């Protein structure tokens, strides 16, 4: 059975909770978090990272949507 993307209700890619574009954004986001931790000497939490991403104009729209989803999920 096909499952739907947690962000946009499109069909998910295999092994992911997201559709193709949101999955790409999610992968980028996870990779970037590692770089942020190195940059701030592990002083940045995942929540702070996601909140900051939502404020930055450079963040892509799909990445923003995934960040928003992850934040919402974390607060539940």
């Amino acid at each position, binding site marked *: 059975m096909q499952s739907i993307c947690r962000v946009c209700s499109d069909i998910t890619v295999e092994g992911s909770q997201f559709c193709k*574009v949101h999955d*790409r*954004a999610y992968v*980028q*986001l996870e*990779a*970037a978090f590692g*770089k*942020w931790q*190195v*940059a*701030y*000497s592990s002083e940045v939490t995942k929540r702070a990272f996601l909140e900051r*991403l939502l404020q*930055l104009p*450079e*963040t*892509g*729209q*799909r*990445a923003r949507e995934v960040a928003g989803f992850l934040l919402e999920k974390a607060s539940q």
Partner: protein
Amino acid sequence: MTTLIITEKPDAALHVAEALQYEGEPRKFSFKGVPVYEVKRTVERILVCSALGHLYKVDQAGISQRRQYPVWEYVWKPIHLAEHGRERQRRCLNAIAEMAKEADAFVNACDFDVEGSLIGYMILKHARAGADVTAKRMKFSTLTPEELRRAYDHMLPQLDFPLVNAGLCRHEVDWLYGINLSRALTESARKSSGGYATLSTGRVQGATLRFVVEREQEIETFVPVPRWEIQATVDVDGETLHAELEVEKFDIKAEAEKVAAVSDGKEGSVEDIKSQTSHVAPPFPFDLSSLQAEAYRHFRMVPRQSLGVAERLYLDALISYPRTSSQKLPPSIDYRELLQRLSKNPNYERQAAALLDIRDLHPNEGKNADPAHPAVYPTGALPKRSLEPREFKVYDLIVKRFMATFGHPAARETIKATISVNGLRFYLRGSRITAAGWIDFYKPYARFEDVTIPPVSKGTRVKFLSVKAVEKFSQPSPRYNQSSLLREMETNEIGTKATRAEIIETLFRRAYIKGNRIEATPLGIQIVSVLEKYCARVLDVGFTRELETMMDTIELGKEKKQRVVDEAIRHLKPVMDELKAHEQEIGEELSSTIKQTPTTELALSVACPKCGRRLHVVRSRKSGKRFIGCIGKWEGVCSFTLPLPQLGTLTLLDQTCSKCGFQLVKVASKGRRPLVTCPMCYIKN
């Protein structure tokens, strides 16, 4: 003896006739409603008649079933039989066929390239049996009388068949790809949604759209990463300057802050000064791509507009043929004589005179050559009419670029002072032009800003007023603009210099892309998604390039046209099988996006006559009525609008009005004959 000469456009016919008439003016008369020029020589009577671009096109063989696909059988048809509203073309073909009966010799004097060779060949082939075999070919790059006379006196003994075959092949392959893929998409969507929307793609169009969609997705999924730059302000002998740290950026905040802490407020000293003079070579003469790029950079003129303007200047015999990939000037032209002619134009008098003082005039040429035409250069002729502002801008750019190629290299002096503070190195940089050379000839298009630093010597004390670690974030790749997208196509060797700008326009017209900083629309993204899923090969740049290379080899006479067409069909057939088998899924995937795509995204290919910006079909939110509006309205600078018929399905045609040149529209209503009209003439009448 009567010779019939065919040119590509009416203006070219006049130039050819005037050049070949030794005394007086050629006689102009109307033959079956078509203007013809008669040139009388001692023993020869020459009739010069113009085509109106292509008079033949590829179309489906037999009765055309518009919704049927795949289609493999095709024929070349007179354009008036293949398309509605081509009355002028019908008259033109009939007149040429009638004149051909009386003619003893035939000459193709269309532009010397693939399209021009094909236009002349098709007309002559069908005008009279055997005319294409006996016809000769005029080869010229400017419409100046001298060159046209030379081209007539030294004609090629027969038509340039390698170019003709390359043209036949390109049109046939592109038609097969375009008609089959577009019909597959359109029909899939129609069957699924019940509505009708024209969806198109093609061999080059699909690959180009993919560039934009890939960039769009890269931007949409971009996650920024922090980095730190050191911003230092220093005091040197009472002057405040910015200094650069030798390390450009830091990936770790603590490291950047440490650097700031050890240098902020401290005093350092100049430990080394290096001065260097480098030479900046003059630019190459313009090929079409570099002309389009410069016209975009300086005037924000999109490639299709700059090509249109350049063609207009060519038809006025002011510049050489612009559709060229050459960066070399023809050795046959007398540069000195050309500059003397340019010096008669007050705008270039000073620069031309300065160049005429140089004893040996050698242009700085690039390595790209084009066997058909040289780089774009001015003919030196004075404009016979007042040039429109856009025409003058492009003409000025071409003239100054041409002159700049003969200039001496410019000399640029750069100074780098190294300041040492607590084991760190900072730099002060300055630069200035010490000899302008070619820059003088290319003003205002060449800009070099001098950056001065005060005189310093080893040991000069430098006070670091402020050193800060500034947080920055990585940036996504920039969106394409029309110029950079065209360059991407060129780099990937897809499309031709003649078609690239038109393909970008089609993507705008189909509402697959939008904006000056080009964005892919949801429809464009969906089209690429569907094609990627069911026929990824169609979007493959490598495959498109492979076909281009094969077509180029026909042009060189090294490959047979039919073999390339067969190869293209062999690749396309399995693609069409796949599309047909998944028609329903494709339709479902496309139809929801089509419904969300508003008509406001339909863009016209002609520019706003008032301000030159893009025109769109807009639907009023208040009244619901549709009309043509200029995008300048949103910028508050232009209020140009034109009314449109309100009922029926509106389609923007690839044809322009014969009277005013505005884009034609078609309105189709159920049970009625489609109406083809010009919105501009409609309002005037």
